[in-house]
């Protein structure tokens, strides 16, 4: 069977289950006695095992199998949850994650699991009674009691049959297979004996063959065909039992009834399981490529609608105009719909954070209460894919620099446990994500000092302006470089990333009370409102999201400050960028040009263009591989007249 076609879905579902494992272990650590949590962890490991085995990823299957063994011991109260076990299980999850990543990237698991499996085995053995192999003799010996029963059965004209069942050598779950045979026969008569014993059958202490003695009214042929109707049964032999009179060997009676009882006990948890009524909404999985295609088609439709609107204006037909309005409404709805389809809950990004926060807190000796809210807030999947990294950075900062050590907190009159909040919500057509801590807050004086060291003049800056300096490149106020946040990636990286997603970030902080970073992101990226401008002979689109305002300027208004061109607008000095220069285009001699004032984060810049062509809804299409290095553009779009127009990446230009 060609399995490669299932790889994507395998990877996707594996990730989901690894996530479930992580979440489960986190809650198990807090509630070690909660059976439902153990069950949910077990289920995740189990599902993973099944999928991995099917894809022949044996190490993943093996590891999850060993995890299951330990989990099974826990849920049967044969093993107590302690931090060692939790930590080991977390390690297993990390290992699984690593293997899944390797499979995604290289196609093979490529990881050492022996050590971790050994550790699991040791834990499992810690309390477990070792199962000793019992040699089973396949010879039927009847005791007196059996003989009495057989005799009386024969007297009543019942058939006493010895049924010799052989199942496939490579059958898995042989006990269950034997049980299936047992159960089937039980419905046809009374089983008075089994060799090996029921216990041995149950514990898989048999090769692939067993005998049962059945008292029945059915014929040998009936019995044979019934058993042959069970899968993985290789051979069935049925013969009549005769009793020799002098056979007098002692043997204990098999307590079939008792064994049944045991089964019920063994499996009683099953009923407990899966009672959590987590809402599963009706959904279909859609290939992302198809979704993108759908998006593109709707994009086309928008383009042609715009085109039609242009034509309609020329024709001045009322009827055409009305119909077009209708078409316009429908396209807008369709567009909204397809954008919603592309939206994913931010949960997908958030759900790995509790684990991360736990590990970090442990590593840094901090006590942290981590609160997440609004995981169901939806964002375009492009944003979802990109937002994880900046959030990781902000959370690390909050834990490392924000939250004080427990001792320090107590000294400050705070509770020893710090709180880090990650909150998402929708606000108009923006999604807001807040990373908040109740730690020491940003020290304005420290930032000032650092700024002065870097040669930044902070005179006349407001406190907020000073706080915003942390977003500058090379700025870090941490006194000691820790392993966690001091790896040279600073807040400037966070800011650049968020800006490139068309978003903004701001900081609020009060010394001693805490810090909050507020990120605002557009809900969707693919269809935007844009301003079309002309520079030299070329037309470009600029996303309205960045545009503060557009002003007409006379070239004589351009001043020079610090060797750079600026304009003064409402008493603000705004640096000017000549797009013609940035893009190496011919400068057109005009007395009056337009200045598009854009805001990227805290930066305000004026972009000088020759003329304005109007505002339009455009569909962003990515550029091909040959143009991947062109940071000036976020993509291109097709306008109503069919011409391709580049969309400027304002964040990269300024």
């Amino acid at each position, binding site marked *: 069977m060609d399995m490669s076609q299932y790889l994507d879905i395998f990877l996707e579902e594996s990730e989901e289950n690894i996530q479930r494992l992580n979440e489960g272990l986190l809650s198990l650590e807090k509630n070690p006695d909660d059976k439902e949590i153990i069950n949910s962890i077990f289920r995740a490991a189990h599902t993973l095992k099944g999928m991995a085995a099917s894809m022949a990823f044996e190490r993943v299957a093996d590891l999850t199998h060993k995890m299951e063994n330990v989990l099974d011991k826990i849920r049967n109260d044969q093993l107590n949850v302690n931090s060692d076990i939790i930590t080991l299980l977390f390690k297993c999850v990390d290992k699984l994650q690593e293997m899944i990543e390797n499979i995604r990237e290289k196609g093979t698991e490529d990881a050492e699991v022996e050590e971790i499996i050994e550790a699991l085995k040791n834990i499992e053995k810690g309390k477990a009674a070792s199962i000793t192999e019992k040699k089973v003799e396949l010879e039927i010996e009847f005791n007196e009691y059996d003989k009495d029963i057989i005799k009386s059965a024969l007297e009543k004209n019942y058939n006493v049959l010895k049924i010799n069942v052989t199942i496939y050598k490579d059958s898995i779950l042989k006990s269950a297979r034997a049980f299936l045979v047992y159960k089937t026969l039980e419905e046809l008569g009374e089983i008075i004996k089994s060799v090996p014993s029921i216990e041995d059958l149950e514990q898989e202490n048999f090769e692939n063959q067993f005998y049962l003695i059945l008292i029945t009214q059915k014929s040998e042929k009936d019995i044979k065909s019934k058993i042959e109707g069970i899968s993985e049964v290789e051979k069935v032999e049925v013969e009549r039992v005769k009793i020799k009179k002098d056979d007098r060997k002692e043997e204990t009676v098999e307590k079939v009834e008792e064994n049944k009882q045991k089964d019920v006990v063994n499996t009683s948890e099953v009923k407990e399981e899966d009672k959590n009524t987590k809402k599963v909404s009706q959904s279909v999985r859609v290939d992302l490529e198809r979704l993108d295609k759908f998006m593109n088609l709707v994009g086309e439709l928008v383009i042609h609608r715009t085109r039609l609107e242009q034509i309609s204006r020329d024709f001045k037909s009322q009827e055409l105009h009305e119909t077009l309005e209708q078409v316009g409404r429908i396209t807008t709805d369709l567009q909204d719909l397809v954008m919603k389809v592309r939206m994913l809950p931010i949960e997908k990004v958030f759900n790995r954070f509790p684990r991360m926060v736990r590990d970090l807190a442990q590593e840094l000796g901090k006590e942290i209460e981590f609160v997440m809210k609004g995981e169901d807030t939806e964002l375009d999947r492009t944003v979802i894919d990109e937002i994880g990294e900046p959030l990781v950075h902000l959370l690390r900062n909050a834990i490392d620099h924000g939250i004080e050590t427990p001792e320090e907190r107590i000294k400050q009159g705070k509770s020893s446990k710090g709180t880090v909040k990650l909150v998402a919500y929708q606000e108009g057509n923006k999604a807001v994500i807040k990373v908040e801590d109740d730690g020491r807050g940003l020290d304005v004086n420290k930032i000032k000092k650092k700024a002065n060291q870097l040669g930044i003049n902070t005179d006349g800056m407001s406190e907020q302006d000073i706080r915003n300096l942390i977003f500058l490149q090379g700025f870090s106020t941490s006194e000691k470089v820790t392993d966690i946040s001091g790896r040279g990636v600073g807040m400037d990286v966070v800011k650049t990333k968020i800006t490139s997603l068309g978003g903004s970030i701001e900081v609020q902080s009060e010394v001693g009370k805490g810090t909050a970073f507020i990120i605002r992101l557009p809900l969707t990226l693919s269809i935007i409102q844009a301003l079309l401008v002309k520079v030299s002979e070329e037309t470009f689109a600029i996303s309205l999201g960045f545009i503060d305002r557009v002003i007409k300027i006379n070239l004589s208004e351009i001043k020079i400050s610090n060797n750079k061109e600026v304009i003064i607008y409402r008493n603000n000095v705004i640096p000017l960028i000549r797009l013609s220069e940035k893009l190496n285009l011919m400068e057109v001699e005009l007395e009056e040009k337009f200045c598009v004032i854009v805001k990227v984060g805290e930066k305000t810049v004026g972009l000088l263009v020759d003329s304005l062509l109007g505002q339009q809804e455009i569909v962003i299409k990515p550029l091909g591989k040959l*143009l991947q290095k062109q940071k000036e553009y976020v993509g291109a779009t097709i306008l109503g007249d069919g011409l391709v127009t580049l969309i400027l990446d304002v964040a990269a230009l300024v």
Partner: protein
Amino acid sequence: MQIVIFTLGNEKFALDTKLVHGIEKMMSITKVPNAPYYVKGLINLRGSIITVVDLKTLLNKQNKDQEENIIIVEINQEKIGLIVNKVDEVIEIENDKIEKPVENNSYIKGIINLKEYIVTLLEGEALIEG
């Protein structure tokens, strides 16, 4: 194999038709400022935006003749347009007719000696990656 033969200046070149998605008439091309020298710009191919490469610049050939066609090739799952003077014909040739190139150039797959002229068979992937 099947090849498509085209003219670039006074030389004939060819590409494996397996790579070729279509042949378009020259159309309006949007310039991409600051793009690599061999990228001519972007075209709207029935709703898709495609990067167009100036093949003569890429191959370092002088040529002032009129450029009539854009050959749309698919390389590494991406469609790319190649500007040529003119597409001549599509022919079937035996693999053993392909001779080793004299120049050791990664984007030249081989030389084909047809009766009327000599054709340089190009290697699509190498053209774009190199």
